[in-house]
Structure formats: C-alpha cells, structure tokens
C-alpha cells in the first residue's frame, strides 16, 4: 500500500488507542470500561495489521490475529465473567483521585510521555517511530488507573492497559517482536488475568466486596 494511506491508517489506529485509554479513565461503569478495553484490543490488532500489511510478513499477520483474539475476545470475555460474578459492585464509585483531576493528570502524563520518548523518536524519525509516544502514554495511563482505582476489576483493566501499551511500543520500535515473544507475553498476561480473577473471587467471598482497600485488614 502507498505511504500516505499507511501513515493515515497508522495514525488512526494510534488515535483510537489513545482515545480508548482516556475513556477507560473517564467512565465509571465497569461494564462500559470492559467494552472500551475490547475496542482498544481491536485498535491494537489493527495497528499490528497495518504494520503487517506494510512488511508483507505472514508472521505479523498471525500476531495481529492472535492479538485480536486475545485482547478483543478472550480477555474481555473473562473480565465480563468476573464482573457478572462480582455482584452489585458494578461501578467505580469514588476512585482515590476524582475523575476530573485524573483526567488532568492524564494530560500531564501525555506531555511527559512525549518528552521522555523524544530521544527514541529522534534515533530513527519515521511515521512509525513517531507514534511511540502514544504507546508510552497508554502505558502511563494504565499505570495511573492501576494506582488510583479501588475496584480490583478496574485495576485489572489498568494492568491490561499497560500491557497493551507495552505491546504497542514494542511493535512501533522494532516493527515486529517475533511471534514467539508475543505468544509468551500473551500467555503470561492470560495467566495474570486468571490469577487476579481467582483473587477477586476469593476477596469477594472473604469481604463480600472487591474494594482492594479492604486488604489492609489482612495486616492487622
């Protein structure tokens, strides 16, 4: 495909990544958050697919398919199951940092991401590498969600957001970390999700709630 179209699609995919990350931060209903996360999985897959089409490498195509299945299919499904069993705690009521403030924080994080990834971009300035800050931003926002949310489930989403970001950065820097690596990453992500899901289930049995602050009680 020709250059301009490639850049257009790439940028669109990156824009979608960014937007979905922001929405995860913005919305309160866990169900919506999970749906947005699924959309982000699609965007990530699209990103990989665009790169694949550029390189004409079947391996990348396979990875794209894998990403699509895992991050837009399996993980959201698991999360939804966890949510369904989570009982009435369906909203991220009062996060540690209120939504308006965390949105402004996200704005700062974006600029930070741009600042730190500037040298990376200048190593080999091209349309692909110039999208690296987006990936870094997604990572930072994911981390922020992980830190400031109370519900175990939304923290899980934050973790997955980080992973999406890392994957995106990986593909953008060296268009294509091999299939094996991606498989490995996906597998341990899956593992982590399952473990955390079990954890949340246990927590709910113990405390009847999935507010992680309750874990403090374990100390004393």
């Amino acid at each position, binding site marked *: 495909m020709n250059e301009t179209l490639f850049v257009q699609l790439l940028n669109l995919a990156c824009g979608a990544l960014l937007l979905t990350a922001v929405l995860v931060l913005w919305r309160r209903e866990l169900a919506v958050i999970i749906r947005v996360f699924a959309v982000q999985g699609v965007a990530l897959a699209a990103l990989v697919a665009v790169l694949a089409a550029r390189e004409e490498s079947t391996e990348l195509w396979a990875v794209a398919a894998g990403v699509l299945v895992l991050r837009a299919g399996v993980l959201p499904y698991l999360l939804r199951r966890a949510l369904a069993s989570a009982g009435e705690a369906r909203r991220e009521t009062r996060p540690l940092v*209120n939504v308006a*403030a965390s949105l402004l924080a996200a704005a700062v994080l974006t*600029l930070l991401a*741009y*600042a730190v990834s*500037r040298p990376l971009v200048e190593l080999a300035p091209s349309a692909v590498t110039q999208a690296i800050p987006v990936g870094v931003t997604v990572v930072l926002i994911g981390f922020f969600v992980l830190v400031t949310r109370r519900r175990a489930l939304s923290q899980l989403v934050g973790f997955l957001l980080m992973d999406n970001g890392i994957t995106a950065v990986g593909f953008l820097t060296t268009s294509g970390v091999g299939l094996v690596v991606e498989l490995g990453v996906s597998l341990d992500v899956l593992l982590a999700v399952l473990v955390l899901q079990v954890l949340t289930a246990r927590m709910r049995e113990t405390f009847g709630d999935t507010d992680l602050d309750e874990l403090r009680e374990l100390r004393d």
Partner: protein
Amino acid sequence: MNLAAVGLGVAVAVGVLTALAAVVVPAPMRSTVTGAGTALTGAAGVVAGIAAMTGESFTVALPALLPLSGVSMTLDALGGLFVAVTGGVAVAAGIYGISYTRSHGLDARLVQAVFPLFVVAMLLVPAAASVGTFLVCWELMALTSLLLVVAEHRRRPEVASAGRWYAVMTHLGFVTVLVGLLVFVAHAADDSFPALREAGRQLSPGVAGLVFVVTLAGFSSKAGILPLHAWLPRAHPEAPSHVSALMSAAMVNLGVYGMVRVGFDLLGGGARWWWLLVLALGALSAVYGILQAAMSTDLKRLLGQSTTENMGLVLVGVGAAGLFATSGDRVLAGLALAAALLHVIVHAAFKTLLFLAAGSVLHATGTRDLDALGGLRPRMPVTTAAFGLGALAASALPPGTAFVSEWLLLQALIHGLPASGTTGGTAAAIAMPVAVAAVALTAGLAVATFVKAFGVGFLAKPRTAAAENAYESPPSMLAGMGLAGLACVVLAVLPTIVLPGVATAGSVALGAGESAVTGAVTLRLVGVVGSLSPLVLTLALVAALVVAAGAVRVVATRRARRVARRVVRLWDCGAGPLSARMEYTATSFAEPLQRVFDNVVQPETDVDVSHHEESRYLVQAVEYRRRVPDRIERRLYQPVLAAVAAWGRAGRRLATGSVHRYLGYGFYTVCGLLILLAVTR
C-alpha cells in the same frame, strides 16, 4: 535640545518642589497643590517617556551627587516605556487625589509630601544607568510607598499589619536584588550598566544563572508573582485608593522592568531554563491570582489579586520571548515581548481606572465588601460606567483593552510550536500548549470575576443602608477616572498608536530587529500569519447593535413600539416582594467555582444551624461562613515565620539585659577574631 532629558528634569524638579510646597502651604490648600503638582510631574514624565520611545535617549552623569559611584542616568526606549506608563498613572492619580485625600483626612503634611516623591522615585528607577543609582531609586520607591501604605494606620488597625508585611517583604526583595547585582558587579569593570553589559557577555553560565535567579526573586516579589505575592493582596487594598492605583498600575511594572533589563539587556539572553522558569512562574501566578480574585468578596483585594494575574500574563510573555530568543527565533521573541509590554501598558490603564472607581465606591459607601454593595448604578452613574469600562477591559473581551494584548500573546504562543517551524525543541513543545491552556483558563476566570465585581457590586438592589444612600463623587475624582477611561478606550480601539514605541522598547532588550507588529488600523504580525483590527471589530459591533435595535423597532408592532414600557413589579412567584436579602451575593456567585476548584483553593466553610428549643426539627437560623485562605501562604510562610519566632526565643536567652554581659559579648568576639587571625596567618 533633548526632550527626554528636559522632560525627566522637569518631572524631578516639579516633584521635589511639590513635596516642599506640601510641607509649607496651609492645610486647606495642601491637597490641591500636591494633586496638581503630582499631575504635572506625571505629565512631564509622559513627555520624557514618549520622547525616549521615539528614539531620543540621553545620558547624564553626576558623580558628585552620591558618594561612591555617583549618579548616572540613561533613558532609552525600554526605560522610556515604563516612565511614560508611570507618568500617565500619576496624572490620573494626582488629579483624583485632590478631593480624595481631602475627604479622607489624608492631608497630613507627611503623606502629602511623600506622594510626589513616590512618583519621582518611580520615574527615576527605569532611568537609572548604574547599579548604585538603581538601588538608591529602588529603595526610595520602597520607603515612600511604605509611608503611603500606612497612611491610614491610625484609623484602621489592619493597615498596620499590612504595612508590616509590606515592609518586611519589600526589603527582603531589595536585599535579594542588592546581592544579585553586587555579585554581577563583582565580575564587571565598574557598576555602570554599559560595563555590566560588557561583562554579561562573557559571564560564566553558573554565575549568570545565579545573578538572574537571585534578582528574579527580588523583582518578582515587587511584581507580586508567586510565591512572593503575599504582601500584594494586603498592602494594595489597605493603601489609600489613589496610592493603590499607583502601586498596582505603576510600581509592580518596575519588577517586570528589572527582569527584562537584567535578563535580556545586561545578561544578554542567557540559558533556556531561565525563561522556562519565568514562564512557569507567570502561568502559575496568572491562574492562582485570578482564582483567588474569583473567590474574593473585597473589591480592592480582588483588584489586587487580579494584578498578580496580569503580571503573571506579562511574565508568560517575557518567558516566551526569552525561550524563543534562546532558540534563535527573533521574530517570535519580538512578538512575545511586544505582547508582554503592551499588556503592561493596558494593564496600567484599566487597573488605574478600576482602583480609582473602587476608591469612589469606598468614598461614597465606606465599605469595600461586595456582599454589602449593589444598586450603585442609579446613585453613582459615572463611577458605574467607569468601573464597567474597566471590567470589560480587564476581562479581555472585545472591544476591551486587554483583548488585543492577550490576542498577541496567544498568537506568539501558538506559533511557538515546533510543528509550525520554530526550533523550540521539546521544552517549547511541552510549554506552549500548557501556557495556552493557562492563559485561556485565566481569561475565562477573569470574565467570571469581573462579571461578579460589576454585576454584584453595581447592579441590582442595594444590600445595605451604606449602599442605599451612596452618592456620586466630586468632579476632580471623576476627572481622574475620566482620564484613565479615555486611555482605556484609545488603547482598546487604536493600540496601533503605541505599538511602534513598544517595538523600539523591545528592540532594546532583544537587539535591533524589525517591528513585530505593523499596521495603522489593522495589526499585522510580521513573519507569521495573523491580523486583527480592534477598530474595525468595534465598528462592526456598534453597527450590528444599531441594526439590531432598528430592526426590532421595525418588526415590533404598534403595541410594542409604544415608547413607554409598562413598568411592572419583578416576578416574585406571586409571593411577597423580593428583598435585597434574596439577591445573589458575591459569595454565592463564586460558590460553584469554589466547589469546582475545591482541591486547589481549599476553602474553609462552616455552617451552623440553630434550632428552636421546642423542636430540633424547626430551624431558627442558618449561618454560613466561608474563608478562602491563601494556601501558598499557609504552606510556605507560616513555617518560615515559626522558625524566625523560634530563633527570636533562642536569642532572648542571650539577651538578659545586663550591660556587662553585652560588653562581654563584644569582648569575646574581638578575642575570637584575633585568635582566628593568629591561626590563619
């Protein structure tokens, strides 16, 4: 013959003579003499300043006048701009003061004599051409202003505390400036500015940075910039109103002058981080100042806090200019600096107007509390019109005065992005969007603030008896306001008449370059795309207004066209008449904003509900109290003050009052020094 020199000479002479006259003439005449003399001084200053801005600069050296370094004066375009601004403010304030001082019992000899000296000192600071002269004028300005601030301390105790704050902070500021400049002088041939200019070029970055930061601290405290602003919202409200105008519209500018003079002219640009620092301080001050103003319910305090905001905007411009200059973009640097200097001028104009109008309100009602005002429009129409004009100017809406300068500032910031061609690098890429957001938020909050000040203070129904029987001010006060208002209008529709002078002033700082903005009616940016014509905009608005009014007359049918509107009672939902207690007050107006910015301002509110004794379900009265304490003050100043107090207590243990002990201290010190010498030899 040189107009600038003559003007400045006349200004100084008239000022000093006025001061002497104020001492000798009897009380009834005194305020008239002082007012007129001060106005003349200001007028001469304006002439000198304009002459200097149009290229006539002069230099005089009077070695005998002062020990050590002697006095040396140079008035160039940059200094001329500030001299002209100061002079203009002085004219309005002087005329206004004639009846203001008389009616406020401020015609004591001291106060009257010091007032013109204050103006003279402010006129001389931008003309000083050697560190010695500069510091002397600076200190003279500080002392005279201090005396004027505490003028009313007998009548109002809070004035004394404000005076203490001002004294301490302004002198700490002086010390930092002193230290900074002395360090600078130590690396130069002598203390004259040309010598410093020479030295500044080959100063090591470390020393230069030190000099800049230390002097920046002093200058920014004078300009009321965070975090050294604490004195400003105290001193400016408590001073007599015409003095407040001088301080808030003229004196604070000299802090900016110092920064530009030292940073650009003497140190010659310097490193990028200096200007990022200035930019950050400016943005912070702008947002924080206007936020405090939006919460404030004291009319003059609100104006003081808005001064912090405007100086912050100026610093944003200065910082951006420095940023562009260090990254080699002269066009944008010139544009940003022009925006900053233009904002200095327009801020002087509308802040004078606002403070003088606030003074007449104080004069007529005896209160500055917005919650106690209201309904002044029918009682003091001229003052209301003046304040309305000033509020429009301050809220940066077209056809307001500050709109043009903020437009220039935003243009400079927008074109400062790497994407649009400059080489600002990452720093600019981060700084510019944040700066634009800060300026925008400031503009929005300023609108809310001044709608509150004007709408609650002057419109609607009077809230207290004091506002009920307010009356219009005497002619000389109205004349003072009129002059300031005229300046506002002219600057609003034809800012182009001052822009050439502003450009030359900027070229002093940034080195010769072509003017950043051209055009007689339409401002056209040079080097970047952008044009705006305030005059045409105003005309278009007026035309549209006329057309709309005419159209309504035509469209409305006979019944509606009947000229007399039917006077009806306000819609009170059919219940009893609306009383003034049902009106929105300034506090309630700001309440939503306060809740939005809860995390930032952290207001202290307490609500006590008192019930009837029969039943706790029947509410007898609900009392709501709100204070918006200055957070930075609480976090930054109180620890310092506590530490100082602790030292004082420690010191007391040494001072027991026995003379022998004191003599002993001296003896021990001498011996100690001798031993030290013996050892080091």
